[in-house]
């Protein structure tokens, strides 16, 4: 009753069977010469073709890569809404309110910076219902069919609560707001502790605050390559924050390396909102929302007067906004529309901002002039308030063409290795 199997036969069949099934699709797809097949990433064929790069001077109307969901789609009941967002970027009480109103659960997957976030989305490791990209990724996400068009009838607050310019004509990166709604608006400046730095000195030194040897060991800089290199460019006198000039990028890189190597600086995303209030840093690169939100991280007994923020008032500074989009892989697109509408509502959007987030939403009801009087923004942080006309003069970062992006990423790689 002995069966004679040659070991080789057995191993051969076992190995062959194991390898055949999973890799068949991949190998068939890869049978053509590499580089000829342009559909990677999201896995779907590109239906729209290349989209020109959007800038404030050349706004882009994104082509529709499909139909938005029908208005009469029922709201998914008892679902788990997958939210994919920055860490510490939404008020948990607002999320709980949404969960209670719709009787659903929210699962919040976090990323620490945009590059990390996009990487996982494009690789398909996360399949969220809601995603919060920066504006320089929108065209690419549409081109790769990673996000779906929105049904404005399901997001009434977009028309009634948000600044009209975000729908008519719409932002430069998404004319007509076909795919995006704005989440927050912010400027990028320098935060400092007012108990260690004089306000007058801060204004005098401007960006050089971050390069001041007096604060060595107490400097933080953002772990986000566009903002980091962008600010160094401005400090060195280059006002094009989308430049592809290798010399300018190199000089910016050297400046940041100076912070890292000579001034004991730290590159991290939580320098301003979490560590500056604790006293670990004295000066840090800061988004306006981070320093306003830092008031919630102050130790008991420390007044919010210690928080300071500098942003240029006579020259253009960095400004931008974040968006919310619905990926095509969303399992609960109807509920996702409700989520967008919820965060754009006056009641919840304002609570999100005023009670915790610190990042201002572009609501017509929020008069920038009143924010300090109403106790939402600490009095010392008047430069952290964002107004609509700042967008006309401000420096906005737009998508970089691949070759330019490579220059920036290579410079960033060198910074990350300590140069």
């Amino acid at each position, binding site marked *: 009753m002995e069966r004679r199997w040659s070991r080789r036969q057995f191993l051969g069949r076992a190995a062959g069977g194991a390898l055949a099934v*999973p890799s068949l699709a*991949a190998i068939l797809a890869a049978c053509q010469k590499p580089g000829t097949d342009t559909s990677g990433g999201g*896995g779907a064929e590109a239906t729209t073709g290349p989209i020109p790069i959007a800038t404030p001077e050349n706004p882009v109307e994104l082509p529709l890569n499909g139909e938005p969901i029908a208005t009469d789609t029922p709201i998914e009941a008892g679902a788990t809404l997958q939210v994919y967002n920055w860490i510490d970027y939404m008020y948990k009480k607002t999320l709980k309110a949404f969960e209670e109103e719709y009787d659903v659960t929210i699962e*919040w997957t976090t990323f620490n910076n945009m590059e990390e976030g996009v990487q996982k989305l494009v690789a398909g*490791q996360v399949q969220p219902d809601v995603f919060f990209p920066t504006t320089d990724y929108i065209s690419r996400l549409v081109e790769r069919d990673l996000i779906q068009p929105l049904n404005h009838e399901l997001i009434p607050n977009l028309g009634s609560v948000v600044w009209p310019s975000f729908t008519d004509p719409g932002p430069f990166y998404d004319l007509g707001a076909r795919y995006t709604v704005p989440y927050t608006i912010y400027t990028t400046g320098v935060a400092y502790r007012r108990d260690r730095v004089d306000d007058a000195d801060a204004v005098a030194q401007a960006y050089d605050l971050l390069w001041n040897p007096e604060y060595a060991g107490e400097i933080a800089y953002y772990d986000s390559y566009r903002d980091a290199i962008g600010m160094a460019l401005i400090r060195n006198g280059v006002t094009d924050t989308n430049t592809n000039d290798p010399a300018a990028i190199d000089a910016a890189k050297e400046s940041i390396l100076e912070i890292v190597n000579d001034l004991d600086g730290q590159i*991290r995303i*939580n320098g301003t909102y979490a560590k500056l209030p604790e006293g670990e840093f004295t000066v840090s690169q800061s988004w306006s929302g981070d320093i306003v939100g830092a008031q919630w991280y102050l*130790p008991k007994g420390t007044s919010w007067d210690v928080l300071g923020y500098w942003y240029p008032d006579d020259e253009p500074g960095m400004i931008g906004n974040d968006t919310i989009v619905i990926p095509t892989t969303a399992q609960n697109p109807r509920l996702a529309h409700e989520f967008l509408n919820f965060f754009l509502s006056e009641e919840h959007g304002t609570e999100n901002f005023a009670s915790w987030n610190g990042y201002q939403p572009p609501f017509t009801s929020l008069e920038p002039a009143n924010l300090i009087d109403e106790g939402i923004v600490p009095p010392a942080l008047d430069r952290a308030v964002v107004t609509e006309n700042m967008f006309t003069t401000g420096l906005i970062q737009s998508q970089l063409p691949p070759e330019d992006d490579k220059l920036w990423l290579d410079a960033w790689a060198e910074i990350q290795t300590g140069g």
Partner: protein
Amino acid sequence: MSDTVLDRVAEGVSSKATPSRGLRNPWRKPWGLRLVTIGYLAWSVLPVVIAVIFSFNSGRSRSTWQGFSLRWWTQDPFNSLFNDPSLRAAMFQSLKLSLLTVLIAVPLGTAFAIGIDRWHGRPARGSNFLMLLSFVVPEMILGVSLFLLFTQLLQGLGLSGTPAQILGLVTFQMSYAVVIVRARMLSIGPEYEEAAMDLGATPGRSIRRVLLPLLAPAILASVAVVFADSIDNFVIVRYLSGSADSEPLSVKIYSAARGSPTPAVNAAATVMLLATVGAVVVGYLLYRAFSKGQRGDDVTSIASQV
């Protein structure tokens, strides 16, 4: 031990063999080594003890004590361990991953060890080499390789998240089970099974009724080792994680440490610590029960195999 005997012997030995520093007995216990050992044990244990204590801090600092409070355990409405579902989900995921990994890796590894001990020839050595390679390769290399495997080659299979993490963990941990069980097999000869088969048992029964009970201490040891190693695994599970529900506590600690950690993270880590210690204690008691009357292994030799 025979320390007292040695001491008595040493009294009679002339101390002129070593340069005298005025010490009476050169063979008495070295206080220098004792100091180093006590110092090391304190250095090893204190940071964790302090971290556990700080989970009861009343403020959000993990470094400045601001008073005792259960704020981060139960009271804070959004961020305490009790009220923040994300921390509980992370702990649950750690447990889930480690239990499933143990369930797959230990039988796979035990079978591998039994087979490799009895099977001779070139293919056997090849398999053994492959297993030893997986034992020795740094986790980072395996982590990146598995990440690229699951996001490129096996992308269409939708295995991201927990399934990929289990597959990766078993690959990493199987060799631990093999090594531990194999070591035990080396110390058991084939006589027991042969005796069983002389008495009429089939090969299957002799393995089930004779070999496996003999291997029980080693199997239990590998369960403990694989469990403890998987529950705290970081590199592989981080690269293979998908959305938040597949992020175990180790990844949560890492993300929080780079964001805004609160003592609630300390609390979650404390719970995991207690769970793991509890599991190990249970495992040890079971091990003692199983190996009563068997020769060879005691705590110290198992410890040296770890």
